[in-house]
């Protein structure tokens, strides 16, 4: 398989990005990025720090305006939507922020209630408290329901953020470095949780990471974002055998400095 071409299946993709360009002033971050996310897929995006990974997924939910190119989520072109349509798409797309982004002034319960109260139509006939407790139980933190975010450890915050994102039952989940800043054991717990979510919710995921263990375990397919474009694409095994030095750099063990 040609690893530089976007990979297609017969199913309609949930996310399509064609020729995405974005710059901040003179800083060109994305220079024609393409991506397809298929149903039930776990797509990992690898890239160096500052390569524009966060900017890329923020374009998907309209947090960052695109300069050029097409961004289509669930068949809708994001830049052309009005506020109401955008809000609807956002309920279908879960977003786990890089630093968890829990609301500091609210308890864990209120953090989870927040998206629910903004979308009462999503609650249907369910009871709010029950939904909140269920979401917390699914990340193993039911006991923390009345704590403030400042009282939680980094790993717990990440779990609460996961629960808050899951509460509206999204069809697509975007993870921005879900394991960054966590120790390997906690990181592994989060990875297991993501795999379980993938199984239980039957959602497609786009995962941004530096963590190669995470990429290996989670990914069905990976894209390397380098120089603002999709530099290489393929499964973990395919990419790990690549001879391209820029691709190889991601798989290299850290070498001690030889003096």
């Amino acid at each position, binding site marked *: 398989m040609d690893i530089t071409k976007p990979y297609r299946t017969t199913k309609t993709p949930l996310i399509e990005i064609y020729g995405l360009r974005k710059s901040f002033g003179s800083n060109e971050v994305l220079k024609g990025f393409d991506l397809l996310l298929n149903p039930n897929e776990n797509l990992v995006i690898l890239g160096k720090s500052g390569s524009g990974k966060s900017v890329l997924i923020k374009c998907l939910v309209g*947090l960052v305006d695109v300069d050029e190119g097409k961004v289509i989520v669930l068949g809708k072109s994001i830049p052309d939507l009005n506020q109401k349509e955008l809000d609807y798409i956002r309920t279908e797309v879960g977003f786990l922020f890089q*630093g968890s982004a829990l*609301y500091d002034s609210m308890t864990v319960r209120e953090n989870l209630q927040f998206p629910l109260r903004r979308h009462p139509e999503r609650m249907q006939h369910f009871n709010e408290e029950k939904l909140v407790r269920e979401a917390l139980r699914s990340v193993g933190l039911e006991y923390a329901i009345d704590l403030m975010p400042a009282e939680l450890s980094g790993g717990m915050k990440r779990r609460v953020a996961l629960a808050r994102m899951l509460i509206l039952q999204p069809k697509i989940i975007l993870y921005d470095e879900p394991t960054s800043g966590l120790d390997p054991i906690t990181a592994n717990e989060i990875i297991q949780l993501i795999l379980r979510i993938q199984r239980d919710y039957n959602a497609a995921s786009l995962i941004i990471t530096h963590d190669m263990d995470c990429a290996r375990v989670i990914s069905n397919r990976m894209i390397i974002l380098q120089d603002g474009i999709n530099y290489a694409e393929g499964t973990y095994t395919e990419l790990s055998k690549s001879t391209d030095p820029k691709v190889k750099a991601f798989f290299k063990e850290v070498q001690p400095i030889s003096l």
Partner: protein
Amino acid sequence: MKILDEIANYFKEIGEIALFAKRFFKEAFKRPFERKEFIRQCFVIGYNSLFLVVVTGFIMGLVLTLQVRPTMQEFGAESFMPAMVGISIVREIGPVITALICAGKIGSSIGAELGSMKVTEQIDAMEVSGTNPFKYLVVTRIWATVFMLPMLVIAADAVGLFGSFLVENVKGAVSFKLFFNQVFENLSYGDLFPATIKSFFFGFVIGLVGCYKGYNSDKGTEGVGRAANSAVVLASLLLFIVDFIAVFIADIFYEI
């Protein structure tokens, strides 16, 4: 030249704040109104600054009376004390001191709170969960400062007058009834009305600048500190400008 750049930057910032204010007015009257958050903010803003404002108000009344009394005595005009202190507290000192205290207390806390919400992506998180963060965070806070500042000013005025009364009572054996009769006899609507209107504007300036600085704070924790600090500095400066304009206008309408 460096100094010219700084002046240019200053005007650029004022322009940006004007745009921010325009956005506020565009969203401020649109539904849905975030009532709960507004009430919570009123409580936070009013309650947290009440003690500070009351203490400063009290001391202000004491000190003003202690300082002015000997001079008035020299002229044999102690009987004008209640009127004079009343007018100066209600017209100018009460609103300005309260606003400055609140610029320090409220302006910096709004700047720091919104700044840290910005850098930790909480504002983005709000936006993706279907909330307009400008409405939820900025509009409610500005409305809350606009409504709470006049209340705090009234509290400061009242306590300041009481402080002044204590001095008069101890030094000049003036009774409570006499003191306040004198004060209210000499206060007209022409004193109260502009002072209250002015307080609304002071509240607006404090909320606006705090929110503007926080909402546009730079990445990183350093940016949050800078947002809080510059909110206080800029708000205090603008308060004096607003005060000057207010006095100028009031002077036209109410010939002294």
